[in-house]
């Protein structure tokens, strides 16, 4: 039996127009739809793929967050995770999140820990590496392919600049996933209905200090005003470009 932990980030839908609270202290969640981080979903899907390939697997989905992340974990259950765990703490700091994951996973003999290559909200891309370090597991980052090799190891592909790297790793291993390792799955109705009855446990956070204190979120500077030129005013256009040192 392969024991798999899939770490899930709860992130705003990719089509959401992001707004901050008036004081810039946090994301304004009004009207925002949250989803499973797409890269984490690749990991979940690859785990389910292993089951479809005939491997005996148990899949636990884990998310660090408040009660608001439970619908996201339910979706992971609907897609095919066997059970879910919510570590009841806000996920403000990558180091904090990594330590929570490691604290939960220690002693549970997971063979594989799948994560996304990054979360699409804060794009830190550091949680999986930290989890691997804290767990003393092998770490495959940016995996685009995974193929089992026997019962206790796998071959991985990872994209590198200008090519591809092929690696073998013996379990236990942390894998940060990106596009290519699997296809996203659409939960079916039976899965959604079954998800209501699958266990979703709330776990108290481990005693871990927060290393950073989020202060403020700001928007990128607004783009400069557009200047229009009439079609016959090519000279004006060229003159302006010269004045601004652009040509």
């Amino acid at each position, binding site marked *: 039996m392969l024991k798999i932990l899939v770490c899930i980030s709860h992130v705003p839908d990719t089509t959401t127009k992001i707004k901050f609270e008036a004081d810039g202290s946090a994301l304004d969640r009004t*009207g925002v*739809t949250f989803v499973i981080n797409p890269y984490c979903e690749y990991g979940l899907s690859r785990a389910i793929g292993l089951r479809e390939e005939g491997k005996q697997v148990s899949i636990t989905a884990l998310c660090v967050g408040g009660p608001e992340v439970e619908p996201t974990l*339910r*979706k992971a259950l609907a897609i095919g995770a066997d059970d879910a765990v919510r570590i009841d703490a806000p996920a403000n700091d990558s180091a904090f999140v990594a330590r929570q994951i490691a604290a939960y996973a220690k002693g549970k003999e997971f063979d594989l820990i799948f994560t996304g290559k990054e979360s699409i909200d804060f794009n830190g891309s550091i949680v999986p590496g930290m989890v691997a370090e804290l767990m003393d597991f092998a770490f495959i980052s940016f995996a685009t392919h995974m193929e089992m090799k026997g019962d206790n190891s796998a071959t991985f592909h990872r994209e590198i600049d200008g090519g591809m790297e092929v690696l073998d790793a013996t379990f236990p291993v942390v894998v940060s996933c990106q596009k290519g390792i699997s296809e996203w799955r659409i939960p079916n*109705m039976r899965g959604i209905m079954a998800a*209501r009855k699958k266990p979703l446990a709330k776990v108290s956070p481990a005693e871990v200090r927060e290393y950073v204190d989020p202060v403020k979120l700001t928007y990128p500077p607004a783009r400069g005003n557009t200047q*229009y030129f009439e079609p016959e005013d090519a000279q004006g256009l060229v003159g302006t470009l010269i004045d601004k040192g652009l040509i």
Partner: protein
Amino acid sequence: MAREYVNMKNLRFLLHDVHQIKEVLAQPYYAEHDLESIDMMLDAVKQLSDTYLFPHYEDMDRNEPQLEGGEIKVHHSVRPYLDAMGEGGWIGAVAPMDLGGMQIPEMLGVSAAFVMAAANNGATGFNGLTTGAANLIVSFGSAEQKEKYLPKMFEGSWQGTMALTEPQAGSSLSDIQTTATPMPDGSYRIRGQKIYISAGDYTETENVVHMLLARIDGAPLGTKGISLFIVPKYREGEHGELVFNDVTPAGLYHKLGQKGTPATHLMYGEKDDCHGYLVGEPHRGLSYMFQMMNEARLLVGLGAVSIASAAYHASLQYAKERPQGRRYEDGKRDLTGPQTPIINHPDVRRMLLLQKAIVEGGLSLVMECARYADLAKAGDEETRAHYELLLDLLTPVAKTYPSEMGIVSISQGLQVLGGGGFCKDFPLENYYRDIRIYPIYEGTTGIQSQDLLGRKVVIKNGKAVKLLMAEIQKTLEAAEAYEDLRPYAEKLRAKLETVQQILMHLVPFAMQGKIERYLSDATLFMELFGLVVVAWQWLKQGVVAKQHLVSGKDDPDFMESKLHTMKFFYHYELPKTLGLAERLLDDTVLTIAEDTRELVN
């Protein structure tokens, strides 16, 4: 291509806040579902539509089905889509769980169908027809028929159809001539032909299950001699293998729109080897079919509003991005400044608001009907009778308003794009062609209007109308709690009195046996009645939006937009009832044919 085709936030607003699906979920029949799973299913259907439907919409229109060598080939995206639908559980979603369905509320089924049809209405006929055909087997089929056909249909392997129309029998189904001859083994030999059979045959399906109307030899003339049969393209042979059942495609219709789904002309029993299997009792086929047809009519209204939704989003996107002309400021335009997006011009804004008002008002009406269907299905006998009566009354309206006004809506949407709207570079011309069939599907607007005025309004001495008035009264009372909604409640109350006044004028014609006179302007009555009913739906949405704004929860911009569109409907659309009322109360009738002279020449 537009990036969006539905507003999921609006769909959730209607489902949860306006029409309160939680009340439906409280019924024991829906115990396997909760609000969270309902939302997850909506997300899943959007994902499915984004993946399998929307990307193929345009190409499916450009590459319509072909009949070659006696075989019909459809677009390459159809098979993967139907597999995904079957795997997702959507084809049998509304059916009871003990028959392999998911037992979801109609309200969710309608919501899902809305998203899918908005994504690609040229494709959703395939699964919609299978669902409709399967529903007939669920309701009236034998245990053996359910076991044999439903699993394959629900998994998307076997296609279902409705085989009703014949060359001489369209709206007049009593003139059906296809025959069914009883055989010693209990089956029937079918002989005849059917036309306009959507998804009637194609190579990318293992089998086609036709729900076919025919006359058993010796059956009485008229509607009371029509029976319902299952006629598969491939029947089960002696050893369980599938053998050809003598159903052949004779032709393929080339349509104005909805080109993805083949419309076929089918021959049954040319070699005298077409076996049919009776569903239910002999001679009751039309009543069975009408049960399905009421559901289908609701889905037609929904289909129309879905296309109008996709068109609205395409127009809206264009209007936000297309700079053209300049606004007046202090009576002048600054010709040296940049052009303004056309959404800032009042006339364009008017067209967009009209589109939005029709789409969101029409969808709300269909959702209301779905809610009645759910409450009827899960309730006791008295509750069932109550909601069925309301559903009976509103079904022709929910079919007709979105179909007729959806055309107006898309036409205005096309106008927003100017010359671009007329070209294939943008999807508006495609939507415009696709929606044109909707006032014809499942009983034309004329038929629906006669059904409304001739049957539904007077049924049980006008009881259905009284029930509707009581429902509207609840909304009026809720609206009157808010000062700024009170004027709109008053407007709606006045329109209800207009409806009563018109009925008082017309019903005596029916009582005197002057049926042609009574029904001569039925379509105009439908138009007026539809405006009033949709005004009710807008007030209902307005009340909920107001409640949200007062309580300060949820997205205030969305709620303000709801109130703005409600006001638009009351100030720009509802006044059209004045002209209609004048006509309906006018004693001069120019449309009844005279015996002596033909004045339309």
